[in-house]
């Protein structure tokens, strides 16, 4: 699990298009399309290079009325996937 105080930072080399409440990404190598649903798109919007994971969890709890544990688990899963796909990096 990612350290909760790490800060996710967007990869600026990817092409991102927001489609209403959803998002599509073109991978850094230009060959793969990734998608985010409404919750994922909300999380993506919180990734501004300054906000850490704890703060993002709090924002998820506020907007979606879920428990902190659920929000933290969902965020961890999504951020891990995003890191794997090269969409974000995690900085201390």
């Amino acid at each position, binding site marked *: 699990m990612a350290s909760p105080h790490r800060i996710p930072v967007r990869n600026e080399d990817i092409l991102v298009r927001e*489609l209403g409440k959803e998002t*599509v990404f073109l991978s850094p190598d230009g060959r793969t399309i990734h998608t985010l649903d409404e919750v994922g798109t909300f999380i993506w919007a919180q990734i501004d290079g300054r906000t850490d994971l704890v703060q993002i969890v709090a924002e998820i709890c506020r907007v979606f009325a879920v428990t902190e544990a659920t929000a933290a688990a969902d965020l961890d899963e999504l951020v891990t996937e995003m890191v794997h796909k090269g969409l974000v990096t995690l900085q201390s």
Partner: protein
Amino acid sequence: MVEDRYEEFRLRVGDAVIGLRALGPQYVTSMESYFQQPSDDAEPDVILTLSVFDHTDQPRIPASLYTVKETDTGGFHIADDLVRCRFDPATGTGELSVKAALLAGRNMRVFEQLLMQAYHSAARRRGLPGQLVHSAGVIRDGRGYLFVGESGAGKSTVAELSSDHHVLNDEIVMVTPDLAGGLANNLSGDLSLRGTPFNGFFTGKQPGSAPLVAIFLLAHGPAHRIRGVPRAEATAQITSQIVPPVGLEDALDGKATAATLETAIQLTERVPVKILEFRPDEGFWTAIDEYTRHTEG
């Protein structure tokens, strides 16, 4: 003794025409037969002189001539000279050399990818906006339906089961604006489907066009059912089935893929996209008719 002389077959793809020159008697006739359309009367936008080489090796034929294309100054080559091409986009002329194996049997479908690239070179020269999509296209009651899916998804099955209607193609269909004068990669205006000469498995394709009213993403299922799909997922699936706008002078790069993504975004913005779960019988048209009545009612 009769000497072979160059003959020119003119292949119409949408509003573009590709001239293919080659040596040999019956060349034009055989191309007309293969593409099921006569050599066009219009002046070609791109002219390629085709040379076919006999060989003793058994070259591996790649499924994609895009991903293994290596560009160099003034041209490109593919897979140990299976294909070698010199092309000048300024004049629209070039020389295309291929090993004979690429023109044998079903390999012709792989060769067609070079003609799709020639189409994009021609479209760029003319500013034509038509986009090629891996799909089956069917006109029913004047409405154009696009069935999108990767190989094995059922495009040819849909075409076979639609033979009572107007099947444009079961492999590559063009999506193009109704309005003339659109820019390349800009699908402005209402959209139409248009047949192309490219070949799948269905042998009853007919030229034509119709307004595009719906896009169905094909999925095999136990029953016929039309269901919604998140727009991002629809966009991703359609992006993967758009023929990248790579001309003979281009390599497949991030810019080309980004262009396909932008095209898919325009399509999902302008045309209803649904998942069509179907089994291999023509009952899926009943589901589509009900869907059409519901959306138009």
